[in-house]
């Protein structure tokens, strides 16, 4: 008890009396307060006060608001180990500052502006913790959006290769071997911007024709797939993410499973390079390398190369050269278009066209 009292006495001594030349008369209630310059975001802001001539003070009131907000809120100081304190609630990481001023309400009903004012409040800069800082940076760069709903479709043509002597895709397939399909897909992604950067679920629907290797040899077959893919994006370091994907679905044969991995380098930077690999049993493999950038305002662009044996687990791999372009319309709507060229061999190739619409909140 004595030690506590001593500490209090010393702290009061350190909280030296205001000493401006125009300081109020000795019997006027005043506060002792070290104005905060910065505080941690997502943590309550603790303001501590000493009060002189407390017997004349009814309440010590702190009026505060998140930086830039219009309305003032009021918090009343409470006793804390001999001093007085006000705990301002933790602010979201998007709040960059808190403004406040201090008023003493006296027992005679009058008020006394003790520190700052509504017209000229004191501003406390809020600094998030390191993990919060990263989240804040990514969230801000993504315009405060966390939820994305994306739907799209694409038509892919690898050309119709000549069925020379019926050897390429079977005698009954005709003079040429068609190799084209369309896909429709939808995806929901939520971004945490934490160690787990995002999670997503995607559903694909594919329908088309390609050359499949059967017991009878290569044959043109109708192929299809309905699959759902769940993915988790981990933050390895600030600008590097790793996506792990798991797929389950059914193609024209039976239920299939698959998985994949994708490495994004440059997350949060104007350009991101994505290297991916994904496979589904009896459906095929895809390796991809993309660069996407957004160095023109509201115009995401991208170029990528994909090698694929999909959609028929084709014996002959194909090359796809793809380019993307898009446009943000406001904060919530993005429209993307994709064009490309694909071929499995020199004598047959075709173009790709597609697009997607994304709503983000």
């Amino acid at each position, binding site marked *: 008890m004595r030690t506590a*009292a*001593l500490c*209090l*006495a*010393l702290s*009061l*001594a350190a*909280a*030296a*009396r*205001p*000493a*401006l*030349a*125009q*300081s109020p008369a*000795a019997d006027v209630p*005043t*506060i*002792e*307060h*070290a*104005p905060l*310059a*910065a505080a941690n975001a997502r943590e309550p802001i603790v303001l501590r006060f000493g009060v002189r001539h407390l017997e004349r003070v009814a309440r010590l009131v702190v009026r505060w608001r998140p930086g830039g907000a219009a309305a003032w809120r009021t918090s009343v100081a409470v006793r804390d180990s001999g001093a007085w304190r006000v705990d301002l609630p933790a602010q979201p990481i998007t709040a960059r*500052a808190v403004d406040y001023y*201090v008023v003493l309400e006296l027992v005679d009903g009058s008020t006394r*502006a003790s*520190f*700052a*004012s509504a017209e*000229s409040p*004191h*501003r406390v*800069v809020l*600094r998030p913790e390191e993990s919060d800082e990263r989240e*804040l*940076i990514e969230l*801000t*760069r993504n315009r405060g959006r966390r939820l994305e709903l994306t739907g799209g479709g694409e038509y892919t043509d690898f050309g119709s290769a000549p069925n020379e002597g019926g050897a390429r895709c079977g005698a009954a397939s005709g003079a040429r071997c068609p190799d084209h399909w369309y896909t429709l897909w939808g995806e929901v992604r939520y971004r945490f911007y934490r160690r787990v950067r995002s999670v997503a679920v995607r559903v694909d629907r594919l329908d088309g024709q390609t050359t499949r290797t059967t017991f009878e040899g290569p044959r043109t077959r109708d192929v299809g797939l309905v699959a759902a893919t769940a993915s988790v994006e981990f933050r390895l370091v600030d600008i590097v993410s790793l996506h792990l994907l798991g797929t389950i679905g059914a193609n024209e044969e039976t239920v299939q499973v698959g998985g994949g991995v994708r490495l994004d380098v440059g997350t949060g*930077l*104007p*350009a991101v*390079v994505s290297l991916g690999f994904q496979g589904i049993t009896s459906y095929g493999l895809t390796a991809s*390398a*993309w*660069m996407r*950038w957004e*160095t*023109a305002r509201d115009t995401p*662009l991208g*170029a*990528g*190369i994909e090698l694929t044996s999909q959609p028929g687990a084709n014996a*002959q791999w*194909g*090359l796809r*050269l793809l380019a993307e372009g898009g446009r943000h319309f406001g904060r919530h709507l993005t429209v993307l278009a994709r064009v490309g060229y694909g071929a499995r*061999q*020199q004598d047959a190739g075709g173009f790709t066209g597609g697009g997607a619409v994304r709503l983000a909140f």
Partner: protein
Amino acid sequence: MTRRRWGLHLAVAMVAAGGTVSAQPAPEAARREGTVVRVDGDLLVVDLGRDSGLVEGERVPVLRPITVRHPITGQSLRDRFPLGTLQVYNVGGALSVLRRTEALLRPPAVGDRVVSPNAPEPREPARPTSAVAMATPGATPRPARPTQQPTTPPPIAATWEQAPAQSAAPTAAAAPGVDAEERAVLTVFLSTLGQRPADRVARWTAYLREHRESPWAERVRAELASLLHFAAEPPPRPVAPPLPTARGALATSLRLGDPARVALQVAGAPVLGGRISARRPGAERYVTVTLVRDGDGFVRGEVPQSLVTLEGFEYFVELDTEGGTAVSVVGTAESPRSVLVEPGPGDAPDPRGRTRIDLRADFADVGSRTIGSRYVAQRFVLVEGDFLQRLDSRVLYGYRVGFGVYSGEGLPLSQLAGDLAAQPSTVVYGYHELEFSPSGFVHVIARVQVGVHRGGLVGGAQARLRIGEERRTNLVLGGDVLTEVGQKAFFALNFQPHPAVPMLAQGEVFNQSIASGDPMFRVVAQVGWRATRWLTLAARGSYQLRNIQNGGFGAGLSTTFDW
């Protein structure tokens, strides 16, 4: 021992204790007197609370305890002498804070005593009970007089016993029954009580000069030696005029756009105003802004936003005392505080200057002509596009993705004379490149490429060495290989005779496409025009040949977007 003599000794003890001498003060006295329990610079904490009557702002005496020895009895008694006064700064329930605002005789210390002048008077005159105990014969037997025993107690004792010590200055001379030597030594002894050590020394020295043969001289000399030792302590440190201090500062780091506001509460001494001075790091001059006084002793101001840049800034705060002195309370002009300014959370790295897109198309003839009665086409078309992102990383300069189509037709040289038709050959390819910058002047570029040729997928690689900066004059040396397609070696000099006219001179040798193994040499000259800051158009001409009879001209166009 006579009753009278003990009465005298008791009276002496009472004088020493009656407001001055007390080993265990009574409860009433505890509220009136306090002990310094902590010293922190010029601030002292005493164990006196509100009930002691201390009033903030008043001055109270501080006393230093000292042990003295009675010249006749040899008893050790506790006395004290004044050090000066302290100002009451803050009064608490059990403790109070005093402040040293003037020079004291000696530096204050734990154990010093403080007397509240406003303490309620005790109901009865306080008797120094402990002093009584100390002087009681059973507790401390009186030592024998060195030379002669007094026969009657000195009458002064009766007087002293009935009056508070501080209200009646004792005079041993008025005590009957005390011999002259005793009276003389007691008179001096009583006159030293409550005095500063130096005064005591002076009085005892004067006494010894006149009473060298006194039977109490030895004891007085011993006391004098003790006092001389005590008085020999270093003189007190003079107290500098109080200076203002301030609590609060700017945040050590800000984000771009944050206001750089400072708010300080001033303490310690009155001030007239203040100012905050800020500058860019290393700049010679400060920009000074006057601080505005606010509320209960606060000063507030804001560093101009023009200084809140990503360079950061330095600052210090000065306050003006009433004496006209400027006192630095946060940092100094020579050693300012630094504030780091960081980009805002939404500020992605500046995308400007990062992107370059090159699109180019070439047509090249390698000697198409009529041989005999048939026309033999020997030519190729090359279309390429690539997308470069400059990554602004120290080692990795850029990342590039590109596509290309190379389509040609022709015959090997050995078959030109035959009747075979020209054979077409096409390769579609794409590539990814990493551009490393081991130094700002030399870059190494590595490419991995994949394409589709006759038999399906083909793969390859390319490496280039660029000497010189990318957007200035530079020389590029490189080699390329693509399975089942061929190899290529090349050099290219990019230069700018005028900033708006970039030019290229290139030479290459390759056996790709139509050559079917025959090497081909090609020279290219390109002239560009920088139409805008981000758009450059260029035209190129080339001459290529497989041998001196089989060569031709070519032409092409190129467009570059760079933003």
